[in-house]
């Protein structure tokens, strides 16, 4: 009898390592839950509450108000009837597009150029290094740099004045501010996109290009009929991740306009809005804005997921 029970005990104990897998992922998940998930849930929770600081040490709320925060966000509060949050989304989108279009166009041209065996571009390492360089630079430093360069007494204005022009208020005009922000984002990201697209092109079977060329296709035809269709998934993936990143645009406009989104809030982005409201300690409102941003990003992510899972 004793022997049998002992045997059973032994049998229950097995050589298995799978629990180690769980141990190894514990730190990640503990930290994730404490520092990300719980805060996220809290954000969502507060978005249904009236909860803000009135003055130092005095808070209103938290009072449950359902969707009132969301409703308030979509209420126009000026005579022209603009809805702030939509305006900021619009600003963000416009600035992203103005930067992203040249970013993708130039990246595509560069990627094709670099991968062309016919052109056989020399010094690729150097060019790639230079083009990627802005990406590793602090966005805040880059923005401050742009601020200095385009300021009223900066080098650009000095050149303009030297040539007999009048000082241009780059940082106080809608078009120029937006253009500067878009340009900064473009400079920072086109190198990265180039390299990713290059990897995509290099991933295409070389023999396809060779056979197309032997069949007599011109460079443009090869690009149109072989490169582009096969690059499409990566291209779209890149584009949408860039869009998601663009929606979260913050550092550049924040520093360039000192957080004001000048002029007339036309360069204020959605994350700047969150930041402003959050600094005023309005947890309810900032929670609601965050949620809206999250939902939009979620929809875009879903599209990415669908696309990347196709192949």
């Amino acid at each position: 009898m004793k022997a049998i029970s002992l045997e059973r005990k032994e049998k229950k104990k097995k050589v298995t390592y799978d629990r180690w897998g769980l141990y190894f992922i514990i730190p990640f998940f503990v930290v994730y839950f404490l520092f990300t998930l719980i805060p996220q849930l809290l954000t969502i929770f507060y978005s249904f509450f009236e909860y803000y600081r009135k003055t130092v040490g005095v808070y209103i709320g938290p009072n449950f108000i359902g969707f009132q925060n969301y409703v308030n966000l979509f209420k126009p509060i000026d005579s022209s009837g603009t809805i702030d949050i939509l305006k900021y989304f619009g600003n963000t989108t416009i600035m992203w597009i103005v930067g992203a279009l040249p970013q993708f166009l130039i990246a595509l041209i560069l990627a094709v150029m670099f991968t062309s065996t016919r052109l056989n571009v020399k010094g690729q390492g150097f060019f790639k290094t230079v083009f990627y360089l802005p990406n590793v630079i602090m966005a805040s430093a880059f923005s401050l740099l742009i601020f200095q360069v385009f300021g009223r007494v900066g080098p650009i204005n000095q050149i303009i004045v030297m040539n007999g022009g009048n000082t241009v208020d780059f940082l106080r005009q809608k078009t120029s501010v937006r253009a500067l922000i878009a340009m900064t984002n473009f400079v920072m990201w086109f190198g990265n996109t180039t390299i990713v697209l290059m990897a995509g092109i290099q991933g295409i079977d070389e023999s396809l290009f060779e056979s197309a060329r032997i069949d007599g296709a011109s460079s443009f035809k090869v690009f149109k009929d072989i490169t582009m269709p096969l690059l499409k998934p990566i291209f779209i993936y890149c584009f949408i991740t860039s869009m998601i990143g663009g929606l979260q645009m913050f550092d550049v406009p924040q520093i360039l306009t000192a957080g004001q989104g000048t002029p007339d809030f036309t360069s204020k982005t959605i994350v700047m809005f969150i930041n402003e409201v959050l600094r005023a300690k309005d947890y309810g409102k900032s929670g609601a804005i965050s949620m809206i941003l999250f939902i939009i990003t979620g929809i875009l992510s879903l599209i990415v997921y669908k696309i990347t899972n196709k192949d």
Partner: protein
Amino acid sequence: MTNVSKSVVDNNKNRNAKIKLIIERIISYSFLIVLTVFCLSFFYVLVINSTKSNDELNSVFSLLPSKYFFENLIGALFHPTSQYVNIFSGFKNSLIVALLSSVLTCYFSSLTAYGVYAYNFKGKRIIAAFILAIMMIPSQLASVGFLKIAVDLRITDQLWVLIVPSIAAPATYFYMHQYLKATLPLELIEASRMDGSNEFMTFNRIVLPIMKPALAVQMIFSFVASWNNYYMPGLLIEDDNKTTLPIMLGLLRSDAIGKVDNGQIWMVILLSILPVVIVYLILSRSIIKGVTSGSVKG
């Protein structure tokens, strides 16, 4: 005769093709050079202006360097005219946060990726799918709740609050997982088990060294990301002894009081990007390779 004329035609064809190629090359290289000049012009202006005095900067713009570089350098380091600038403490804080964050990110992302890759525990698939799903959630969603908690617990103003969350880095996890899938045969782990190693030791002594290329790449990425991070530190850090460089630059932007020496502003910008630029220039090859293989960065 016919042979000769044919070869002449061939030669012509050949020459035309050659000329076409040369023209294409000229266009390509000009394009590249224009872009290069465009990219580098910002840095050139930065470097040039950091060599100028305040007066020079306020007068006429010139592309030539001046002689105040060291004056500006010493000024920016030791006698900053902006009261918000303390390069040393900014560097120290940024270095602490960026280094520890990147080490933690790399180590724990690898550990997590290894745990998911090498073991078959219950719910593994759910967990893998979960991490992929959370990868796309914008960090701002957490920021409201995070700030609330940090304020309530009185843990704002502490550098570790910026460091510890980096243990959970889904994007790095994803990269590491891909890398493991491509490079680590499970037999190697079994061999280590047979050789008498325990699981943790196997990870540290066999798996980590094998992941070195991926670690190096991710280390640089997470270092740069942390070094450049402006959003969360901006909300959490209020003690000026704990400000990181990006916040310091943000403050400098606010501090546009006329008394701040412009030469110093340029110098501060230069100094704050220099370490990353130097590291980048040294390791640019592997970084670019990393971008190529990862291509997941948003």
